[in-house]
C-alpha cells in the first residue's frame, strides 16, 4: 500500500514548484529578491553604520571612494557620500524605504482596484459605467503624471511643516491611486464571468446580501490574477517612487530612498565621485529586475494557455 505523499512532497510536485525548478533565471531572481528584502528588513542589524545618527557620522570621511580603489578605506566598502555617510548602509536603509513604499502602494492600489472592480462588475449599470469611464480617462495618462499631480496637490494643501513627516504616506497614496485601474479592470472582467454561474445564482436565490456574495463567493474566484498583477506592479511602483524622488518630489533627503540617493549623487557625477550615484542605481536595477522576473514567471506559470 502506498503511503500518502507528505505535505512537503506534494508541494514539491506542485505545478508551480515544478516550473520554478525548471527556470534557472527565476531561481536566481528569487534569490536576489530574497537577499534584497532580507537585507532591507534587517538593515538596522546588517548595516555597518547607522546613516541617520548624525552624531556618529563625520564630515572628514566625506567622499571616500570604494574600498578597492586606491584611496578607499576598508571601513566603508562602497565608499561614502558628501556628508561622510557609509554608502552601503545608506543603500540598505534606502532599499528598505523603496521596498516599503512600493509594497504599501501596491497594497493600497490592489485594495482600491479590487473593491471598485467588484462593485463595478457585480452591480453593473450606471456605477459600472461611471467607474470604468474614470478608469479610461486615467489610462490615457502615464501613471507617473497622475502620481506627480496627486503629490503636487497634496503639497499645496498641506502646511509646509508637515511636508517631510507626511511625505511617505502621500507618496504611497499617489502611487497607489495612479495604479488601481489595472486591478479594477481585471477583477471586473472576471466578475462578469463569475456572476452568472450557478453558485452565485444559488447564493442569490437563498437571499444572501449582495455584499456577502461579492466578498465570500465571487472574490475568492477572481483573486488569482490580482496576485500576478500585484507582483509585477511592485517593480513598477518602486520605479515610480524612485522617479518621483529623483525629481525631488518624493521621499525627503532626511529619509533617503534609492531614488533620493541617486539624485543626491547626481551632483557629483561630473566631478569624478561616481560611486555616490552609481551604487544606489545598481541596487535599484537589481531590486526591480529580480522582482519583475519573479512576477513574470508567476504570470506565465499560472497561465493555463502557456502550459
Amino acid at each position, binding site marked *: 500500500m502506498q503511503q500518502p505523499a507528505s505535505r512537503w512532497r506534494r508541494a514539491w510536485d506542485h505545478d508551480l514548484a515544478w516550473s520554478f525548478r525548471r527556470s534557472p533565471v527565476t531561481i536566481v531572481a528569487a534569490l536576489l529578491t530574497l537577499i534584497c528584502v532580507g537585507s532591507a528588513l534587517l538593515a538596522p542589524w546588517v548595516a555597518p553604520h547607522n546613516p541617520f*545618527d*548624525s*552624531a556618529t*557620522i*563625520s*564630515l*572628514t570621511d*566625506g*567622499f571616500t571612494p570604494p574600498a578597492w580603489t586606491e584611496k578607499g578605506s576598508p571601513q566603508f566598502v562602497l565608499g561614502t557620500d*558628501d*556628508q*561622510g555617510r557609509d554608502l552601503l548602509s545608506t543603500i540598505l536603509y534606502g532599499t528598505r524605504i523603496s521596498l516599503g513604499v512600493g509594497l504599501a502602494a501596491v497594497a493600497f492600489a490592489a485594495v482600491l482596484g479590487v473593491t471598485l472592480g467588484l462593485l463595478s462588475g457585480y452591480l453593473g449599470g450606471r456605477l459600472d459605467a461611471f467607474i470604468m469611464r474614470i478608469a479610461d480617462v486615467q489610462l490615457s495618462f502615464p501613471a507617473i503624471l497622475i502620481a506627480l499631480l496627486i503629490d503636487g496637490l497634496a503639497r499645496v494643501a498641506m502646511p509646509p511643516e508637515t511636508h517631510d513627516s507626511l511625505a511617505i504616506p502621500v507618496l504611497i497614496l499617489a502611487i497607489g491611486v495612479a495604479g488601481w485601474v489595472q486591478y479594477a479592470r481585471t477583477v471586473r472582467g472576471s466578475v462578469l464571468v463569475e456572476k452568472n454561474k450557478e453558485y452565485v445564482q444559488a447564493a442569490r436565490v437563498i437571499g444572501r446580501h449582495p455584499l456577502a456574495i461579492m466578498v465570500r463567493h465571487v472574490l475568492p474566484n477572481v483573486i488569482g490574477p490580482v496576485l500576478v498583477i500585484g507582483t509585477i506592479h511592485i517593480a513598477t511602483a518602486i520605479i515610480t517612487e524612485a522617479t518621483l524622488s529623483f525629481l525631488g518630489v518624493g521621499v525627503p533627503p*532626511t529619509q533617503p530612498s534609492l531614488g533620493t540617493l541617486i539624485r543626491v549623487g*547626481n*551632483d*557629483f*557625477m*561630473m*566631478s*569624478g*565621485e561616481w560611486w555616490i550615484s552609481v551604487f544606489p542605481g545598481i541596487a535599484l536595477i537589481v531590486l526591480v529586475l529580480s522582482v519583475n522576473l519573479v512576477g513574470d514567471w508567476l504570470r506565465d506559470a499560472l497561465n493555463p494557455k502557456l502550459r
Partner: protein
Amino acid sequence: MRRKFLVAATLFALAVPAHAVMLRWAAQNDILTLDPHSQNHATTISIMQHCYEALVRYDKKFQVEPGLATGWEQVSPTQWRFKLRPNVKFHDGSPFTADDVIFSYERIKQPQGTMQPYVTGVKEIKKVDDHTVDFMLDGPNPVFLRNLVVFHIMSKTWSEKNKSEKVQDYKANENTFASRNTNGTGAYMIKSWEPDKQVTMVANPNWWDKREGNATEVVYSPIKSDATRVAALLSGDVDLVTDLPTQDVERLRKEANLKVLDGAENRTIFIAMDQGSDELKYADVKGKNPFKDVRVRHALNMAVDREAIKKVTMRGLSIPGGLMIAPQVHGYDKAIDVLPKVDVNAAKKLLADAGYPSGFGFRLNCPNNRYVNDEKICQALVGMWAKIGVKATLAAEPMATFIAKVQNFDTSAYMLGWGVATFDALYMLQALARTKTTGADGSFNFAKVSDPKLDGIIDAMKTEMDAKKRDALIKDALIMVRDQYYFVPLHYQLRPWAMKKNVSTIHRANDAPESRFAKIEEAGKAGKAGK
C-alpha cells in the same frame, strides 16, 4: 511685391543680429524683484546695477569714482555738495535732475524695503539747482561715499506716472509696476524678466559713458541645479557661469575651451540665532530661549569643524573664518580672526553649565540655492552639533521663500551670507549686530541681537572721522561680536568664475559681474545671437 518684402525682411533679420554681441550668463538663483529699492539681495543688485546707477560707482579696483555725479565737495563735515552729470537721460528719454535724487532718497528710506543702509546717516537732501544737490548728514560720516554706491536713482516722473512711489513690500508678496518694470540710466536696459527663466538686457545706446566691453545683449539665466549649470557651460549654451559648484572647479580648469577666473568674495557665511524672543518659535525648549545664554552660543561655535567644511564640503574653496567680515573689508585684522577650537567635550560641558546637559533641539532654516553648498553646509552642521547633543532639524528651501521667513521673524536659527557692498566693517556691524530699529540700524538683524555697549561703539563709529580712532572702534566691536558669540561665522567664500576662452571680464569681489567690462571675441558667433 511680396518677394521684395521677403528680401527686405531677410535683410533686416540678418542686419540686426549681425551687430548683436550676446553674453549669456548663468548663476544659481533668480532675482527677487526689479524694484531697485526693495531688496538688499546680492543677485538682485548684481542685475539692477546694469540698469540703475548711483551718484558714484566703483572702478576696477573698488575705489569710488564719479557716476551720475561728476564731482563732489565737502562744504562742511556734514554737508556734501554733488554736481550732477548733465544731459543724462533715463531709458524712457526723460532727463535726470536733482528732483530724481531727492525722490529716490525719500523712496529708498521707506521701511518696507531693506535698502536703507545705503543712505544711512543722511538727514536730508537739498536741491541747490537742477544739477546740484546738497546731502545733509547727521554727523560726519567717513564711509559716506561708499554707502552711496548702491543708492540707485529712479525717475521721479516715471515712478509717479506708474504709481510706484511706494517701495514694493516684498515680504507681503506685493507687486507694483516698478517691481516688474525698470527705467534707469544705466549701461543696459532690462527688456524682460521671466521669473525663474531669464532676464534679458540690451545695451543702452544713449548711455553717458562708453562701455569697455562689447556685449550688446546680456541674457541672465538662473539655473538651480549645479550639474545642469555646468553642463550648460560645457555644451556652449552659456558663456559665463558664476556660482560654480565647488566639485566641478578642478575639472573646468582642465577644459581646453574654458577658463577659470579666480577670486575671493567679500562675503561671510554664518549662522544667526534668535536671541531676542523669550521662547524660541521652533525648538523643544519651552519657556526660555537657550540662545540668550552666551555659553550655548559658545558651545555651538566650538562644535563646528570649519576646516572639515573647507576640506570636504568646499573642496578648499573657502577661508575658514571667525570674524563676521572677510579679509577684503576695511577693519579686518588677521590677528583677531581666531577660529574657536573644536572641542566636543568642552562644548558639552558649556551646555551642561547652561542647564542643557542633554542638549536641546531647534529648527535650522537654510537656503538651498543661494550660497556655495549652502544646504550641504547646513547638513554638515546638523551632524557636528549632534555630537554635542544639540539636535538641529534642517529646513532647506529656495531663497525666495527662505528670506521671506527670515524677514518675518519666522525662524529660530538661520544661515545667511553677508557681503559688504561698502567694503567697510561698519556696514556689517550696523546691519547685523546693531539693535534693530525701523531704519538702517539692524536692518538685517533678524536674530534680534541687542547689546547696548556694542550699539554705543557702532554709533560712535558712524561719525568718527579720525581714521585711527575709528579703526580702534571697529576692532573693539569685532572682538565683542566674536567673544559674545553673537553669530556662528563659518567661512569667507572663494568665488571662481568660469567662462569660454573667448570671453574676458574682470572679477569682482562682490561676485557681481558687470557686463560693461565683458569682451566677447570670435566674430563668427555673432550670427547666432538672434533669438
